[in-house]
């Protein structure tokens, strides 16, 4: 730096020489479309299969099955919005203002629904195993309906602020149009801070605490019992909670860092911000990936679910009924109806 660059400079600090932060997002432009397509291709078939298996036997579904069905619907809708975000990462938001509000809201509703139904499944298992109370007996079908309705309405209400503030706007600093929430400029930071905080608490912290509580209690109960599938059940519980934790914690930690930077709690630094942005993209991929893993973790591990899946395949002619009979799948299916709901709970996922 020499004198000709500036005219008045007291020379006591180096603040003024820092060049502006760069605005390239080449990482996002290359990796995000790959991430999104990967999750799209993995998540859509798995969750659609769960729906295809569970929907035809709506009448005879257990409570866990009904939550699983809702979870699959939420995951499918969430995954369906991914192509839009992939396009945005490359070209900016090229769709209309209305599409931004709609797609953004669908994403939000199902983001919450996906996590809340996981909590419902945990709670249902907690009551049936720890307290041996079957909250959702067949005689209380309306209660089941009410729970699902409450979850969906809650997700809808939580998304209302997003629906109101979501907008496709030209961000000249990013040099592109983005579909994100737009606030009045003076209050943008305050609002963002509040909404970020709320979403982290409601969409991650509380569900995590609830799931930890439910599954820890279940493990304690199982350790005391002499169940025949005890070890298998414990392994499954640990994988369910572990995968949820592993998929979502990195994202929320980076998001917290990003909020601290945005609220100016942390001092600004171009390199650090770039790192946080990249980390946010990578960790969000693991969050999305959880949608693809739900069918594997909750549905396909269930003995009953696999039976129903084989039956569906037999009905559509993909496999012969003889094969099913030889493998002993059909008698097992008939036995289902007489199983107690506790065994149901332990078989349909645990």
């Amino acid at each position, binding site marked *: 730096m020499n004198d*000709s*660059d*500036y*005219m*008045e*400079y007291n020379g006591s600090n180096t*603040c*003024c*020489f*820092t*060049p*502006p*932060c760069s*605005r390239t*997002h080449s990482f*996002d432009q290359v990796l995000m479309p790959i991430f999104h397509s990967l999750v799209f291709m993995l998540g859509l078939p798995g969750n659609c299969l769960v729906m295809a298996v569970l929907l035809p036997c709506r009448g005879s579904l257990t409570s866990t099955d009904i939550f699983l069905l809702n979870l699959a619907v939420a995951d499918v809708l969430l995954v369906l919005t991914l192509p839009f*975000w992939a396009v*945005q*990462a490359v070209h900016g938001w090229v769709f209309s203002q209305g599409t931004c509000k709609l797609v953004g809201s669908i*994403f*939000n509703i199902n*983001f*919450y629904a996906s996590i809340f139904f996981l909590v419902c499944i945990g709670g249902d298992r907690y009551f049936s195993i720890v307290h041996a109370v079957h909250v959702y007996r067949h005689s209380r079908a309306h209660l089941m309906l009410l729970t699902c309705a409450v979850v969906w309405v809650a997700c809808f209400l939580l*998304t209302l*602020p*997003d629906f109101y503030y979501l907008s496709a*706007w030209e*961000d*000249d*600093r*990013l040099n592109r149009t*983005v*579909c*994100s*929430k*737009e*606030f009045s*400029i*003076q209050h*943008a*930071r305050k609002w963002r801070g509040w*909404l*970020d905080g*709320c*979403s982290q608490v409601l969409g*991650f912290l509380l569900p995590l605490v609830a799931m930890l509580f439910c599954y820890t209690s279940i493990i304690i109960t199982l350790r005391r019992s002499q169940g025949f599938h005890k070890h298998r059940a414990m392994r499954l519980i640990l994988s369910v909670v572990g995968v949820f934790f592993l998929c979502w914690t990195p*994202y929320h930690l980076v*998001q917290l860092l*990003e909020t601290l*930077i*945005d609220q100016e709690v942390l001092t*600004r630094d*171009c390199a650090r*911000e770039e790192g946080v*942005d990249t980390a*946010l*993209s990578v960790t*969000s991929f693991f*969050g*999305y990936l959880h949608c693809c893993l739900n069918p594997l973790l909750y549905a396909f591990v269930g003995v009953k679910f696999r039976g129903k899946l084989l039956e569906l395949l037999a009905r559509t002619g993909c496999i012969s009924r003889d094969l099913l009979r030889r493998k002993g799948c059909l008698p097992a299916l008939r036995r289902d109806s007489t199983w107690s709901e506790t065994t149901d709970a332990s078989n349909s996922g645990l």
Partner: protein
Amino acid sequence: MAVVQGSMTSRRGRCLCIGPGMPAVHPKRVAKVEIYGPSNSCDHIEVIVTLKGKGQKCLNNKSPQAWQMIQKFMKKSNKAQRK
């Protein structure tokens, strides 16, 4: 919500300049001036000058020189709007 800007779906924009910026630059060395108005990415106006052969620098937006550049920019964009 988790899904806010700078979030799962959209990258967040930020102020481009860190710190107050340079009080002034030599007018002869300025190759290009970029002015970014206040937006959701950044709550204040930013003036970035590209210096000949020296890369980009932030100009203190409260300095008289920056003020002049902003005035010039506003006049230009007003004219462009009227057209």
